[in-house]
């Protein structure tokens, strides 16, 4: 792929496509988040226009952002999203770490299949997997039936339409995103370090805390962010499994856009969400770039 012109031809289509369909839309969201809502179509007023005298007139409307801070609804949705996404991330970690560890230490011949079993649900429909939980969690659903039968509870629990159902749904949907990066770091680990620790009289559990856990931190961080970032903005899971009072920022954005038809406020909610997520997104990008450049440097040319 030598020659400047050849490179230009290869690079232009994806570059131009992403600039038009990924970068420009954010600028438009930013613009509309500052404009005034209107009853017409599109339901917002232009941010700037030329008046008769030929002067440029701006109509900034920071009130959309003022509303986010002024109304408790937005703030509690914001905080609740962070809380639910955070708990789901921890649950994924608690379930995913032992699973990834077990796969990484399984016989070599098994690892690919075990890993495929983790990734497979990701390939089946996300919507359908969330839907499947409704039948399990509802009051007359399977989980309550099993618990009643086993005598653990004496009357059915209300799980569906609570935050707990949302957390279960999130943990379920995002578990593969946690296991795969964890596996990648645990599998690469130099096992002689553990042998050395054992030779020096270190107990397995202590060796895990002193050697394995610190070495797997890149995987823990990558997995946690891959779960946390999309979970914060989730719409489908809180809508299907949560109740009317399960407030999440993704649901608020959806309601502002589709039910209230308030595009400027929906845009302001989107910008507020991005501000929250921009730091974790940057961290994950840096980690990914570093890892990939390392891999490319080692095996490339």
């Amino acid at each position, binding site marked *: 792929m030598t020659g400047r012109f050849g*490179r230009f031809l*290869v*690079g232009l*289509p*994806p*570059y131009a*496509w*992403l*600039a*038009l*369909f990924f*970068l420009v*839309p*954010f600028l*438009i*969201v930013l613009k509309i988040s500052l404009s005034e809502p209107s009853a017409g179509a*599109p339901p917002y007023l232009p941010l700037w226009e030329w008046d008769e005298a030929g002067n440029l007139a701006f109509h900034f409307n920071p009130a959309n952002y003022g509303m986010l801070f002024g109304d408790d609804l937005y703030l509690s949705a914001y905080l609740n999203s962070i809380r639910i996404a955070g708990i789901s991330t921890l649950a994924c970690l608690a*379930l995913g770490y*032992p*699973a990834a560890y*077990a796969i990484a*230490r399984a016989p070599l011949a098994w690892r690919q299949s*075990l890993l495929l*079993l*983790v990734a*497979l*649900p990701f*390939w*089946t*429909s996300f*919507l*359908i*997997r969330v*839907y*499947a939980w409704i*039948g*399990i969690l*509802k009051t007359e659903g*399977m989980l309550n*039936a099993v618990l009643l039968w086993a005598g653990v509870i004496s009357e059915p629990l209300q799980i569906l339409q609570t935050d707990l159902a949302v957390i279960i749904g999130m943990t*379920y949907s995002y*578990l593969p995103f946690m296991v795969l990066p964890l596996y990648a770091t645990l599998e690469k680990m130099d096992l002689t370090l553990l042998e050395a620790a054992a030779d020096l009289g270190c107990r397995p559990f202590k060796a895990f805390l002193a050697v394995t856990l610190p070495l797997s931190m890149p995987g823990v961080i990558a997995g946690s*962010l*891959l779960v946390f970032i999309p979970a914060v*903005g*989730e*719409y*489908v899971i809180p809508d299907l499994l949560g109740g009317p009072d399960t407030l999440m920022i*993704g649901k608020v954005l*959806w309601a502002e856009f589709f039910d209230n038809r308030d595009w400027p406020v929906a845009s302001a909610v989107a910008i507020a*969400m991005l501000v929250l*997520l921009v730091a974790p*997104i940057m961290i*994950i*990008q840096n980690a*990914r770039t570093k890892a*990939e450049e390392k*891999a*490319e440097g080692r095996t*490339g040319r």
Partner: protein
Amino acid sequence: MILRGLLILAYAFLYIPIAVMIVFSFNASKLVTVWGGFSTKWYGELLHDEKVLDAAWLSLKVALASATLATVLGTLAAVVLVRFTRFFGRTLFTGMVTAPLVMPEVITGLSLLLLFVAMEAAFGWPAGRSVTTIVLAHATFSLAFVTVVVRSRLATMDRSLEEAAMDLGARPLKVFLTITLPLIAPSLLAGWLLAFTLSIDDVVISAFVSGPGATPLPIVIFSKVRLGVSPEINALATIVVAVVAVAMVVAGRVALRKDEARTG
């Protein structure tokens, strides 16, 4: 031993919900939690549901088009990232390729819709929300996934064949088409399949960019699911799961055979 138990627990957690849903799709009773005997009547009813069939057909077309578009663009993006180490705006490009992977869907959906509205106001295209807008939106967010898959393959492939062809005087384009492309073909297939399943599964982005005339299958399922669990949806879900599973097995075999043909 404890570890193995935990692993089995994780797999149970992943697979039991899907298994329950498949079992109850064959339930004769309309009540979704009471077993009323084996029946395939819900599948029969599905075949006569015009709305579902239309939506499925539309989703299939959208997924084919957007996955193909995403594979072409994603492969080019992967070539740029792996082979062109220095160019203007590389950081920006890397950011734009990887950010869609984690971007919450509501933000992607809203921003693309606002873009389409602004474009229509400025150039009169795309007119309204239609198949075109869904394809453009799906291609954009699945492009990033294709890039990840192709990029790792491209980064780890053996370049000596390319160098040999180059030494023998083949032009870069010819080297790419006759050497590189066949070598990375399995990853292109994997990327295409990933893009296809992402598209055929997408609810949130489609909700923003689809119009009344073009409703993809997930939107139809979603509006039915919001009304509660029904055996008909269980049947539909089972078909979707079965189709994906078959596609995965076939793709896995194809990729495996290609690998074997090359290495042994």
